[in-house]
């Protein structure tokens, strides 16, 4: 049995099993060629499922193509679709809604996530149990979260309004979280923060635990206060991790769709219609494929550009 698991024996068997002509051909290949041979399937897959659709989308963005009209003539429209996207007030309204959502979710999740990580890192009794409990929301499906928060926000029977009412004395039926223009943008921020703060916490916790204890011990010897230790050791050393969490959440929330679609459908009116919801409506409900391809490219370039700038900043922080 042991012999069967011996890697040398397995290698020998593979060598024996390789037909002689093939073995001769492979022996003639350089290391670089063999490396290419191994990564070729992955590259082929990448080209097929990432690069080709991207190039195809770019091509479609310069046409008037509609996926629901296969028989219609497809004509080139130059940069008309891009002009339409960039001058459409509804697109700008959706971008504003996205920016509002992005800013507040990232701010709240970073602050709460880091605070939770800092507390969990104290290793109090039962911290393992509480870590698991805190992680539960991020394990749920966004569709489930969207649906059950819609019930929680229901002004007549929803638990959320009763909790607010209990602490504030405001009657529970007197306000509507997802029905009010003022509150609806906050309703999606609350749900996203509830769901994804644990994720930020987890990354921050990894950052905090990567700080060697001897640094704190040296600081103790130097009689640095807790406050001083936090500002001079904990925060700077955990910063690359926090920035990484911000990057991940930023990219994710820029393309947020499922949870918000199920919770508010972009309403009331278009108050919570994020860019991805507008894009979906243009692409798969209105079937303006050319226009929506241009919109998708604009979104892609925005997120790609911002992420690149951010990654450069992150590298600078790491190298400091």
């Amino acid at each position, binding site marked *: 049995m042991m012999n069967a698991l011996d890697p040398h024996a397995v290698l020998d068997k593979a060598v024996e099993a390789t037909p002689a002509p093939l073995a001769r051909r492979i022996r003639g290949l350089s290391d670089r060629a063999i490396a290419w041979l191994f990564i070729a399937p992955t590259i082929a897959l990448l080209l097929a499922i990432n690069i080709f659709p991207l190039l195809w989308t770019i091509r479609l963005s310069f046409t008037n193509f509609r996926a629901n009209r296969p028989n219609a003539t497809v004509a080139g429209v130059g940069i008309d679709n891009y002009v339409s996207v960039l001058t459409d007030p509804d697109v700008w309204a959706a971008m504003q809604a996205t920016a509002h959502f992005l800013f507040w979710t990232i701010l709240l999740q970073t602050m709460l996530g880091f605070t939770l990580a800092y507390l969990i890192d104290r290793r109090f009794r039962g911290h393992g149990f509480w870590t698991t409990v805190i992680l539960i929301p991020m394990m749920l499906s966004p569709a489930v979260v969207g649906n059950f928060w819609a019930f929680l926000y229901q002004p007549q029977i929803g638990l959320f309004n009763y909790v607010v009412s209990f602490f504030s004395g405001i009657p529970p039926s007197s306000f509507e979280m997802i029905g009010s223009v003022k509150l609806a943008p906050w309703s999606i921020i609350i749900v996203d923060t509830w769901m994804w703060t644990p994720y930020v916490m987890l990354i921050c916790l990894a950052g905090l635990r990567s700080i060697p204890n001897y640094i704190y011990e040296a600081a103790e010897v130097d009689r640095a206060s807790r406050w001083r230790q936090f500002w001079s050791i904990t925060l700077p050393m955990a910063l690359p991790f926090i920035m990484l969490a911000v990057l991940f959440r930023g990219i994710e929330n820029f393309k947020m769709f499922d949870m918000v679609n199920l919770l508010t459908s972009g309403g009331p*009116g278009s108050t919570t219609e994020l860019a991805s919801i507008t894009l979906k409506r243009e692409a798969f409900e209105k079937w303006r494929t050319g226009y929506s391809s241009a919109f998708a490219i604009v979104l892609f370039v925005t997120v790609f550009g911002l992420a690149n700038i951010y990654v450069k900043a992150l590298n600078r922080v790491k190298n400091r």
Partner: protein
Amino acid sequence: MKRPVACASAIAVAAMLAFASAAQAQTKTITLCWAAWDPANALVELSKDFTTKTGIQMKFEFVPWPNFADRFLNELNSKGKLCDLMIGDSQWIGGAAENGQYVKLNDFFAKEGIKMSDFMPATVVGYSEWPKHTPNYWALPAMGDSVGWTYRKDWFNRPEIKSEFKTKYKRDLAPPKTWDEFKQVAEFFQNRTIDGKKVYGAYIFTERGSEGITMGVTNVLYPYGFKYDDPKKPYVMDGFVNSADSVKGLEFYKSLYKCCTSPGLTNAYMQEGLDAFKSGQVAMMMNWFAFFPGLYKDPNVGGDKIGFFINPSEKTKGVQLGGQGISVVAASPNRNEALQYIKWFATPEVQKKWWSLGGYSCLKSVLQDPGFVKSAPFAKEFLESMDMVDDFWAEPSYAQLLLAMQKRVHDYVVADKGTAKEALDLLVADWTKVFKEEGKLK
């Protein structure tokens, strides 16, 4: 003795297996696609007769209404082979016809002696024809439907409620005939405590994502005088969609939403309405006739407790058409079997049974039967409604037109954005842009 018996048994088993596999090979199965709702269950029951008669097995793909259009329009656009028969929404007919997604049925109808004149004219125009008002048929009218109203008859009949209403409004409390009467009744019931429970005046459609608020607001717009375009100049909408009457109608819908609905009714359509009515929260509910057989059977609010009335009038009569026609999907590999189903479904006996099971037949011989009006407590209202229906655009670009209206109306009614005139002006601009892109307007 044992050997011959064993041999005979083996031959018998082999013969049985051979026949069974031959029979299986001959058994065809066709798939019918529709929405997941009460009438679909009735259709499953009805279709058992088709299988008995023809030996063709039936499979059903039912998708809940909020995803219905997304799911099946994708299927049609991608030339999918999932559905052989499609009971698609009336507004799909233009797109499905022009994009070659449905089979044109004129020759088949002529060959089988199926006459469109045997069906209610509104349903033929609404569900079968494209272009409208031309004899080009892409579907057989399958499920007649329009918006109607249910009310709590038991509440309306309570002496103390009746007398209070009469004192306040100087008229008897009865199902409203005009929108002004409707608002009075709704205001009267709003926030009233009945049997120890707070109730609300009315339930209306406000859904944002698919078609809900459009299918709701049009029931006020049509009676107020809204027109989709100039009857003399097709697709010219300025002064019709945004006429003074249309503005009044839209303002009225918003006033109803503000005064007389339950809290949280910001994104609600058919199912939420059924939930609200069944749980005894509302005095009057807007919904499709298709749900009324189920509501009448409901143990809590059905029977003597429920009443039905047609959409109130104002300047004129009008109500939103619902319902669907049944079409053969062009990409189906089982076209002949699908056509057999349509032929069977069009027969008067089947149509009669369809109505008795809870489907809404569109066949004149069923609807004009002397006993029809008394055959169900909502049958009279259904007939009256089908005489005053109007439908949304059924253009190939209907989805764009619908989403524009969803946005403009929801923005104004629910999100308090701008005025009714501004909302309708923006709607005219949106629709004009679509028709210009289509080349139907210069």
